[in-house]
């Protein structure tokens, strides 16, 4: 006797991002087992990420290396200049990269941290004399030769630098992991005299010993990240009088370049995943929420396997926090617009992007450094190369894991994906061999009458929605559904997937 098809509607699939922590059978269908090259778009749908467009036309100075850090210089007069580092050089420019390395200054590492402070741009890297660029000098120079510099010594060649509270702060030295130096007020080259000073927190670490990794400034607090602990000082506007406000043991920061400010929080990568300080008004303790609770194991594995740099960026315009493991060429995208019930951000993965550095400009532009030079986070190709968008749902039991499910149809609803070829995939019972149904999305011209003259924005109502119905085969107690598509110039959003299945007998 024929049975009625049972419809299981996966509305806004994966809009909660990846969840590799919970059991697939018990997961909410809103999670995704895989969400590569995807973001959560403005409507809460999983969508293909943006690509990047290389704006550099001459990257000769970079050679075969990649840009390891990017920072734009900006002074009060409005002068700007983009600096980057790579290939053991200090580089400036966007279209044509120019070597700005000071004469007789040898660089053999590219792990610089660059900060803007009071019309100066400062370059800090452990074991190297800090470099300074300012508009009035017009060139990058060693800090010790900069005008009015003082107290520049190898003891303060820090790896971490922070511009906050009117001073430069530096820490993480070659032989001193517990001292923080601060410069004179509003003078980043004066490290002696004035109100400059230092503090040794070796006696302050809550677990007895730690090493400073990073510094952060937030809400009149100086947050000192150790590898396994965090020390917070209050009243950092007057560093000589700042007092210990809180200490947190067991949580530290993996790398200085994972610390990003979101305006209300400070995000940083700990050994147990992405963490943040949540602001509190009533409580004096510092609540720490886990922002990567859905991919903790994956993140820890990536941490352990990383051999190069960590790079991160926060883009309020895009609403994400990108964390890149450059050695593994893996970027995790955390949607910071909201958290899930468990306090985690929705997260997707961007594998094999080639991103090695980021920076955001004041106008919201996200610059990405690659081996090609400087790119902008725009378009839906990676420098005119397509990338594959992937979505895989967790294993679905449709509420009864004891009965056989026989898939009959898959009806995805896509938004965008002009002329894209879409591969719908399914498998049963955790099998990694997927059955595939392919279809090509037609031209998604939004102009009336199909005339190009009407394809301009002013005449369009937005992206078009495409629904397809694909017949499927096979059966099993659990079903996993996926969608892949090459993103090559057009966006793609997955609105929903309607799964039509017959519920079979009990096994």
């Amino acid at each position, binding site marked *: 006797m024929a049975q009625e098809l049972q419809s299981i509607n996966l509305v806004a699939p994966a809009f909660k991002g990846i969840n590799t922590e919970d059991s697939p059978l018990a997961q909410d269908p809103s999670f995704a087992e895989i969400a590569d090259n995807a973001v959560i778009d403005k409507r809460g749908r999983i969508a293909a990420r943006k690509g990047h467009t290389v704006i550099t036309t001459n990257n000769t100075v970079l050679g075969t290396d990649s840009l390891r850090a990017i920072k734009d210089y900006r002074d009060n007069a409005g002068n700007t200049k983009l600096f980057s580092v790579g290939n053991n050089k200090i580089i400036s420019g966007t279209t044509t990269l120019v070597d700005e390395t000071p004469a007789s200054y040898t660089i053999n590492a590219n792990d610089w941290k660059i900060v803007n402070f009071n019309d100066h741009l400062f370059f800090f890297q452990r074991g190297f004399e800090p470099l300074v660029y300012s508009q009035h000098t017009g060139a990058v120079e060693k800090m010790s030769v900069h005008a009015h510099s003082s107290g520049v010594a190898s003891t303060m060649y820090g790896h971490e630098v922070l511009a906050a509270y009117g001073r430069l702060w530096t820490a993480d030295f070659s032989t001193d992991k*517990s*001292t923080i130096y601060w410069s*004179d007020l509003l003078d980043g080259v004066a490290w*002696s*005299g*004035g*109100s*400059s*000073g*230092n*503090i*040794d*927190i*070796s*006696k*302050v670490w809550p677990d007895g010993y730690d090493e400073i990794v990073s510094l952060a400034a937030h809400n009149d607090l100086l947050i000192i990240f150790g590898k396994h602990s965090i*020390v917070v*000082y209050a009243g950092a506007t007057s*560093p*000589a*009088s*700042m*007092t*210990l406000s809180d*200490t947190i043991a067991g949580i530290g920061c993996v790398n200085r370049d994972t610390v990003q400010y979101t305006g209300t929080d400070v995000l940083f990568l700990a050994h147990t995943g992405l963490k943040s300080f949540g602001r509190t008004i009533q409580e004096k303790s510092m609540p720490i929420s886990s922002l990567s609770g859905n991919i903790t194991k994956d993140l820890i594995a990536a941490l352990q396997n990383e051999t190069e740099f960590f790079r991160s960026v926060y883009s309020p315009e895009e609403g994400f926090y990108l964390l890149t493991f450059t050695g593994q060429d893996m970027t995790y995208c955390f949607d910071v617009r909201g958290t899930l019930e468990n306090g985690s951000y929705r997260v997707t993965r961007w594998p094999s992007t080639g991103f090695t550095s980021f920076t955001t400009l004041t106008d919201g532009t996200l610059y990405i450094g690659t081996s090609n030079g400087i790119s902008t986070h725009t378009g839906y190709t990676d420098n005119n190369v397509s990338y594959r968008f992937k979505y895989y749902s967790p294993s679905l039991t449709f509420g009864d894991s004891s009965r056989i499910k026989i898939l009959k149809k898959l009806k995805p609803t896509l938004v965008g994906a002009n002329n894209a070829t879409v591969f719908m995939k399914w498998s049963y019972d955790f099998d990694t061999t997927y059955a595939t149904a392919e279809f090509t999305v037609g031209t998604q011209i939004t102009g009336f009458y199909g005339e190009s003259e009407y394809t301009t924005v002013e005449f369009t109502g937005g992206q078009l929605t495409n629904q397809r119905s694909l017949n499927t085969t096979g059966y099993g107690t659990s079903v996993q559904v996926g969608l892949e598509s090459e993103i090559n110039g057009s966006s793609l959003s997955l609105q929903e997937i309607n799964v039509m299945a017959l519920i079979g007998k009990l096994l």
Partner: protein
Amino acid sequence: MIMNIPGYTGTSGGLSSGGLNLPGYTGQSGGLSGGGLNIPTMGNANISPQLAAATPGSSGGFGQFLTGAGNVLGDIFGGVQQIGSAISPAIPAIAGSLLTKEAYDRLSNVGDTAYQRSMDLAERGQQESQFRPFTVTTPTGSAFTARMGGQPQPPMMTGGPVAPPFTPVLRSGVMPGTVMDAGGAFGSGQGRPPAMPVTGGPAQLPPQFTPVLNQVPMTGTVMDGGGAFGSGQGRPAGMPRFAGSPDSQPAADAIARQYQQPTPQPQGGLEIGMSLSPEEQSMYEGLFGGAGRFFGQAQQPTAGREQEIFNRMRAAQMPEEQRQRLALEERLAAQGRLGTSSAAFGGATPEMLAMATAQEEGRNRAMLGAMQQAQAEQMQQASLGQQFLGSSYLPQQQLLAALQPGLTQQQMAQQAQQFGTGLFGETALSGIEAQLLAEQARANLLGGVGSNILAGMFTPQTNKVTGATTPAAGIGDLGGLFGGVSEGLGTIIRGIGGIFD
């Protein structure tokens, strides 16, 4: 009747009751009485009247001897008779001459005697008006003595113990009353030799003080050398009060010389001595030595004392500083700021700088306080030295204060002495004058008698009844006198020569 032939210069002895002293006889005692004869050619022998009146015996050799002696004596007395026979007509002339000569001699002796007596009186007045040593002794045993140099010490009234000399205390010959070191007066600011102990004090008394202060203090009131000045007679003690007629004045002068002779003449200036009782001396020495020590300490460099005071003040401050330092350390540790170093706060935290500043201010205050304290102590030492020095002279001052009434008494005694001396001199001078007048009158009287006798011998006498006129003996009588006398003397000498034949 006594007859001394002119030329006789003896002062005693001689003939009495009609004896005759021949010129050249200078014997001092013995002599003839009852008509004896003193003959200078016989070695001032005196022939007694008994010998002259002796009569020879009637039997034996002795009778012969007596007969011989009688012959001799007969010759002698025959000679004497011849002399007497020769003299008797010239006796008036001789007597007048002798009386006249006696008057002349007495007038000559009046001036000499007046001069001698005046000089004696002046000498006595000088002696009696000279300064009389005296001693003022206070009830506490200190004494003030004043005398002229060479005068004997005033007699000791009570046997108080002798004040110890200053030598052991004052070793360096510095006068008491001036704090000195070996190199000079402390007040001169010259400093003292580094090796000299500061507390040494004055080392030696001035020489002129030593004999005085070593004197035995005397007790009593204002005294002169022989007793209380209150007697005011200016007479040496034990000397019998002068009384008698002017004739007895030489004897009185002799007695006065006898009593005044032991009194030495002043050999030097006025010597003033003060002595203290043993208790006062001990107190004086203690106070004086203490003053020296205080002054010595006042002259010590204050740096060492400042350091000592500073160390003690710091020792008192350090525990609290340590507590505050520990409290700050704990507070900084609780605030996680132990390792804070700010160039704006001297390489530390504001609290550490504030504490260090406070502690440094405390140290500075302690240092200044130590300096002030050391200087105050120096001033105190100087003040104490001054007080001790002043107090050390207090017995002396009190002695001098007690001297005032004694000095008044002495002045009164001196005035009485001088008054008595003046009165004595005036009285004695009056007696001398009266004596001189009497002597002059006696001489004039003798001269008048002699003149009258001589005038009678050369003037013819007319009996107003009978009208008979006796011619003046004249010079012829004198020739008969000298011839008879010479013949009589020859007979005597032959008689005497017969004695030895």
